[in-house]
């Protein structure tokens, strides 16, 4: 079983290779690509392990273990990728590094190579409008029903875990 787990871990790293190849070829970042990479990795792992008689269709435990390992790597990879793509703190750190030294009061101005706070706020607002969590009526931003539900759940969890308002 330990050998099997080791192989599953090795094959699940294909998620990273598949995703990197797709992003480099298409030059686009879409969530659907990640789902596709997960499925491709599961199918590939199962096929190879099946060919080498390490798993069969009725070996439920081994199949569940394979799914768990793939999902674990998938979620860890999403976290890593979203940190690279949208990591706010990492961007601040990169901007400080690129500018060598930054006066503490002007950190908001140099953010994202000089785009600043308004750019970030607008970028996030655009992305949540695209996700249909909020909409713009020409003057104000309002929550959609989906956005209301997500926000209610988020507020409850933030209270349970004592996270304050979050996003800081």
């Amino acid at each position: 079983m330990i050998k099997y787990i080791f192989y599953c871990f090795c094959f699940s790293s294909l998620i990273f290779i598949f995703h990197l190849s797709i992003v480099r070829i298409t030059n686009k970042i879409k969530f659907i690509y990640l789902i596709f990479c997960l499925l491709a990795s599961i199918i590939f792992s199962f096929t190879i392990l099946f060919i080498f008689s390490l798993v069969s269709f009725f070996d439920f435990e081994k199949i569940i273990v394979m799914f768990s390992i793939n999902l674990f790597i998938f979620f860890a990879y999403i976290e890593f990728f979203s940190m690279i793509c949208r990591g706010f703190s990492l961007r601040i750190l990169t901007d400080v590094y690129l500018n060598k030294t930054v006066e503490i009061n002007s950190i908001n101005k140099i953010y994202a190579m000089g785009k600043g706070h308004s750019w970030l706020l607008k970028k996030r607002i655009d992305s949540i409008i695209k996700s249909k969590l909020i909409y713009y009526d020409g003057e104000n931003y309002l929550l959609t029903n989906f956005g209301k539900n997500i926000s209610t759940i988020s507020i409850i969890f933030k209270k349970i875990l004592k996270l304050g308002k979050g996003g800081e």
Partner: protein
Amino acid sequence: MFFSLLFSLLSFFIFLLFEIILRQINLRKTLSPINILIFALLFYFIISITFNIFVFYNPIERYLISLLYFLLYAVLYLHLFIGLSKSVSLRIIDEINYSSLKQLSLFELNKLYSEDDFFYKRVDLMIENNWLINNKNHLVCSSKGTLLVKLNIFFLDLYKIKNSG
């Protein structure tokens, strides 16, 4: 098979219960995902050793498989946790939900989710965790911060990402 599944679920729920209780009584305030993951793993090892000695003996392989399931639940919990604690988008929709009319203009949003919340609290946290050094009101990257940035730049180039953040 069922032992591994049930044991992983049981240990994860006990971990979650502990995590919530410790946070509610202010004994645990960390926002670091690595810290949470280490705490979760330590918790799992303590529970599995206790269970194996006092309740029900099982071969180590069962606990190893159970650990794989536990890791999956832990990474899901971390996703939820990081999203709740750090997400700018979630904060924006929460601010709209908190407002009395359930609607906010860009100006009001800018006021409620100020630059202070946006930048300076994060900068303070990064100084506290030694990613940045505050040298007479001027920020510079620490050596571990520089290493992380170099890695970040490498991955940004690898994925051809131009607008991060």
